[in-house]
């Protein structure tokens, strides 16, 4: 097992990784930007180093400062969390070059899956069905020709993307140039890689993903699916649940079979997620995220497995301690993302100071958060404040518990998404488990009209 791990992230996921390390008896080194100096992950780590100013490009994306921190503190591994450098193959390779274990898959797998256009080509070769689409589009002109061939509506996506960043729906040719430029700029700012590709837009699909764990000995297990269809217009997820409601056995088996084929095709190791679009009985591979996901707690709740500890054990060279047959899900889990956002203003990020905070508790409730009364929310980063996760023996019980937990939650000083989560939970579509990725944008439009 590792002796000391550098946590190359911030916020709740840095704290989550710190907890896993501590429970495994592994020391931790936190990194932070100047505005994050008072952050909880800094306080709880064994050591902490400031790596730059507020803008992520000069701090949480500063590979030289992060690697230097790991070396001078004698770390033997780096956990990248999600976002920032988590899917940066060059960073993973630099870690390896400096004798640091990267807690994730090998750099070449990250590169293959991180380049979404390449990933789709690899998946097609592995007989995994993908949405019709293109390779990298070098210019607006090429995008225009591709869109004509695919037929509008189309989706522009960042090849280095994730989390909805650098993604735009284009309904017709008039919108293409503006969408291309804004997606490119957003991708460049978020991932230092502005390359885009295009997909045929599957109208009103469900976004369902499959959790994978693979060790370094060729063993791969699947930890079921998560339904992440409650998404903002920016395609960022707001509510996730496991398992997916109203999923036929046929579609579930198709999803799991494709996920296994895909993982085997790239000899996957560590934790990863295969994202699919489900439309009727059709299942299309969308992308593979070669990292821990924000929404991993819902899988942990129904499988009673600590995915972050598993990541660390796998990277340390330990084999999986179980087989697929040993894995039996139980109950239902729902996660609500509590973001510092103004939902009435198209979920615009709302930086500020959290003046008062009270989180819920009681049976079946888990809260992953880094905020506290007096914590500041810097304007530079993702607006996630907390993830509230409710577990129940049934989906109905989980919804009731989540509603109760959200009503117990108090966060003052910044706008949050608590009210929107409660609104979603109360809808007939969510209660019946019949919703697609168009559900939340439609709900918002209805609210705006009212």
């Amino acid at each position, binding site marked *: 097992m590792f002796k000391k791990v550098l946590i190359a992230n911030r916020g709740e996921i840095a704290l989550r990784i710190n907890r896993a390390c501590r429970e495994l008896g592994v020391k931790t080194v936190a990194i932070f930007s*100047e505005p994050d100096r008072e952050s909880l992950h800094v306080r709880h780590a064994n050591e902490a*180093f*400031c*790596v*730059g*100013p507020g803008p992520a490009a000069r*701090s949480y994306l500063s590979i*030289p*400062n*992060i*690697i*230097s*921190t790991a*070396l*001078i*503190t004698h770390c033997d591994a780096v956990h990248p969390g999600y976002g920032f450098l988590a899917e940066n193959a060059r960073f993973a390779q630099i870690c390896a070059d*400096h004798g640091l274990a990267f807690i994730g898959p090998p750099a070449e797998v990250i590169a293959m899956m991180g380049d979404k256009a390449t990933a789709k080509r690899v998946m097609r070769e592995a007989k995994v069905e993908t949405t019709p689409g293109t390779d990298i589009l070098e210019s607006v002109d090429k995008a225009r020709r591709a869109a004509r061939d695919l037929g509008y509506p189309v989706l522009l996506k960042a090849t280095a993307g994730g989390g909805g960043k650098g993604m735009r729906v284009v309904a017709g040719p008039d919108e293409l140039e503006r969408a291309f430029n804004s997606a490119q700029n957003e991708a460049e700012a978020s991932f230092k890689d502005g390359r885009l590709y295009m997909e045929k837009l599957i109208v009103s699909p469900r976004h369902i993903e499959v959790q994978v764990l693979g060790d370094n000995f060729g063993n791969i297990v699947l930890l079921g699916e998560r339904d992440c269809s409650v998404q903002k217009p920016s395609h960022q997820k707001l509510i996730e649940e496991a398992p997916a409601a109203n999923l036929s056995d046929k579609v579930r088996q198709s999803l799991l079979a494709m996920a296994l084929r895909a993982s085997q095709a790239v000899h996957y190791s560590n934790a990863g997620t295969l994202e699919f679009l489900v439309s009727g009985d059709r299942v299309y591979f969308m992308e593979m995220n070669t990292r821990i996901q924000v929404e991993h707690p819902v899988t942990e709740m129904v499988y009673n497995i600590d995915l972050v500890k598993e990541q660390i054990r796998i990277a340390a060279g330990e084999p999986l301690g179980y087989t697929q047959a040993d894995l039996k899900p139980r109950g239902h889990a729902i996660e609500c993302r509590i973001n510092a956002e103004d939902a009435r203003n198209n979920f615009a990020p709302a930086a500020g100071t959290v003046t008062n905070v009270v989180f819920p508790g009681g049976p079946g409730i888990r809260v992953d958060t880094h905020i506290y009364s007096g914590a500041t929310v810097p304007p530079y980063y993702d607006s996630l404040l907390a993830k509230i996760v409710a577990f129940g023996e049934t989906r109905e019980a989980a919804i009731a518990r989540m509603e109760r937990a959200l009503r117990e939650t108090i966060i003052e000083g910044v706008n949050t998404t608590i009210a929107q989560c409660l609104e979603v939970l109360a809808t007939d579509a969510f209660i019946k488990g019949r919703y697609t990725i168009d559900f939340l944008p439609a709900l918002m439009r209805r609210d705006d009209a009212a």
Partner: protein
Amino acid sequence: MPGNNVVERVRALVQTFLETDLVRLRIERDGGHVELRRRASSRLATAETAEPQMQAPPVENLDEIKSDLVGIFRFSRPAPIVGELLDSDRELAYVEALGIRNPVRSLGSGRLVSVCCDDGQPVEYGQTLFEVARV
């Protein structure tokens, strides 16, 4: 006893060293050597004792030279001495990161008021390395 003699001589050397502003003293003789180095904090204390008037002006003219990267702090040679006047582009130290020596310069002339790090100390981004009274 020869052993006691050596201890006495080193003790005398240390006493003499402490009475000066020297940062490092190395004496080689007969294939052996003795090296004395002063820690940054003790250098600051010496400056306060020797030139207490230096503490007065920093309020207006004190400038902090900070690290702009993470690495190991090392003095350049000759090591800067508290109280000395610095040239405008004097290399005071370097921060070693990923095997590269990144020089830390005086960034303008002035009098060195304090040294805030020890040789060999890990430093983070934004950490104050030196304080300089600009003149």
